[in-house]
């Protein structure tokens, strides 16, 4: 073998999964808001939850190429699960309840994953939409359990680990949500850099060839869909716990559409898109509703059209120099390049 080829390969694969300076900066800034922006914690909590929800969608859309217009089904199931667990004091400790809610949403994800295996994007759009509508109407119909149109009332959430009670300013809630987001983000990051994650990207790129290199395409899709549903369930549960409330709007089509919008604004397939999208969305919403209280969605709509028309690739090229510059700042001096003899030499 050409000398150094294996080393170069190893280095390339390591660099692929390494934390860049921009990433580290991102999380430092995110956690510093705990101290720097104490008056904004309520709105930031909401943003973090949207970010986690959009991250869950990114796992299927950005990595496996499954488009969904019904992701709120899992969000809502997670929310109602957390709400009911707290209301009836079945699982009092919030982080355990979070886990249980994630499992409930993941179970629904697993059960419905088989419906999205086949078919085109349009089929998947319709099937996911259908599933979420069914969930919505079930929650509406069984109002004696879910509270129906009035929402789930009388939820009291116990202190986290029995120690930290949710305060009225939302400080504890924000820290709680941010920590959950961080943990789940790092887990997702690990997963997408694994052989499993690579196989998802392959399936997204070319399912036919994926099968021809020995990938059990359907089972991988089932796995990631289930995972994504679990993530969405956690997001929903966080909202229910921090607001001590669950409602039909958490299952609604509008929520499914919003999360798709947020993810598209932030960009798919690099994990940060969901969080950045949520941030941009919230900031725009704030800024624009100051400007034109009733018509702020006009501008969101315009932005969406602009992003889609301009295209991800072109935007990526515009910001590429910035990203490259930033990642060079933090790089250790490159090791001397291995001399590469001329081909055939």
């Amino acid at each position, binding site marked *: 073998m050409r000398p150094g080829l294996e080393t170069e390969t190893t280095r390339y694969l390591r660099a692929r999964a390494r934390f860049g300076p921009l990433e580290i900066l991102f999380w430092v800034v995110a956690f510093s808001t705990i101290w720097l922006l104490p008056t904004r914690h309520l709105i930031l909590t909401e943003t973090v939850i949207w970010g986690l929800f959009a991250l869950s969608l990114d796992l299927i859309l950005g990595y496996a190429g499954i488009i969904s217009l019904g992701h709120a089904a899992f969000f809502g199931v997670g929310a109602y699960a957390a709400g009911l667990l707290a209301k009836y004091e079945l699982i009092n400790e919030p982080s355990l309840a979070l886990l249980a809610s994630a499992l409930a949403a993941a179970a629904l994800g697993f059960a419905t994953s088989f419906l999205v295996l086949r078919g085109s994007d349009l089929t998947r759009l319709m099937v996911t939409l259908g599933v979420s509508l069914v969930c919505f109407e079930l929650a509406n119909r069984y109002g004696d359990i879910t509270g129906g149109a009035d929402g789930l009332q009388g939820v009291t959430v116990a202190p986290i680990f029995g120690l930290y009670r949710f305060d009225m300013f939302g400080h504890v809630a924000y820290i709680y949500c941010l920590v959950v987001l961080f943990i789940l983000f790092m887990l997702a990051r690990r997963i997408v*850099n694994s052989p499993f994650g690579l196989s998802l990207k392959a399936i997204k790129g070319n399912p036919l060839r994926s099968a021809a290199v020995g990938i059990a395409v359907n089972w991988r899709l089932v796995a990631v869909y289930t995972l994504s549903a679990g993530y969405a369930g956690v997001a929903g549960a966080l909202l229910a716990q921090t607001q001590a409330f669950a409602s039909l709007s958490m299952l609604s089509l509008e929520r499914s559409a919003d999360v798709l919008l947020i993810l598209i604004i932030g960009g798919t397939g690099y994990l940060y898109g969901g969080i950045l999208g949520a941030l941009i969305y919230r900031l725009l919403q704030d800024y624009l509703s100051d400007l034109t209280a009733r018509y702020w969605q006009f501008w969101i709509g315009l932005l969406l059209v602009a992003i889609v028309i301009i295209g991800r690739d072109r935007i990526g090229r515009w910001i590429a120099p910035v990203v490259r510059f930033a990642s060079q700042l933090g790089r250790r001096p490159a090791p001397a390049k291995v001399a590469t003899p001329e081909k055939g030499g």
Partner: protein
Amino acid sequence: MAPVLETRSLDKRFGGIIAANAISIAIEKGARHALIGPNGAGKTTFVNLLTGMLRPSGGEILLDGAPITYLAPYRRVRLGIARTFQINQLFADLTPIETLGLAISERHGSGRDWWRIVGTRHGVTEEIGELLERFGLADVMTERTAVLPYGKQRLLEIALAFACRPRVLLLDEPAAGVPEAERHEILTTIAALPADVTVLLIEHDMDIVFGFADRISVLVNGELFVEGAPDAVARDPRVKAVYLGEAFDG
């Protein structure tokens, strides 16, 4: 010697059209077997049947004597049948390193591993390096596949199938569409494939077939028309009549 891959009266019908009619072919272990035939003879259909991309309407496919007729494509790959495609089927957004790493990980069964970082398993990067070298892809190993020159994409197409370490490798017109200048590299690469890998070559170009194969099957209208050693097939007047025609007179 026992055949490694064998079909017994394999049929495939699409509605009223017969794409494969009672095809029985045995491919010997280590063979350099070529499958030729005019356009629409059913060559690619036959490959799709062998790899499980199509379900046969009748007949049997045996790998080492065991039936695999209705096995899912990915299972056949794991049993040792890999193929290339006549029209590139690659992962546009992955680099050659990632593409080969993917196939190797899958072969190791670590494709379900969601915790390990790609390439940290022992021996993976070494094998990626070997494959890059063997298929002349080292110079472009960190480029997105979508931007590679066509000839390199063709090489990656073969490298990807080879990374599955198949016992039987099906090459569907490996040099199709490759400019004359880059053709040579592909042909030398194919000629240098290890002897213990059985190769079934589907090809149009007679120079390639007769330079490579030690056995040739001729398909016409979905049926096995003639089979034999290259010189016997070349001399066969019926073959000349239906297929080779001018290519041999010239």
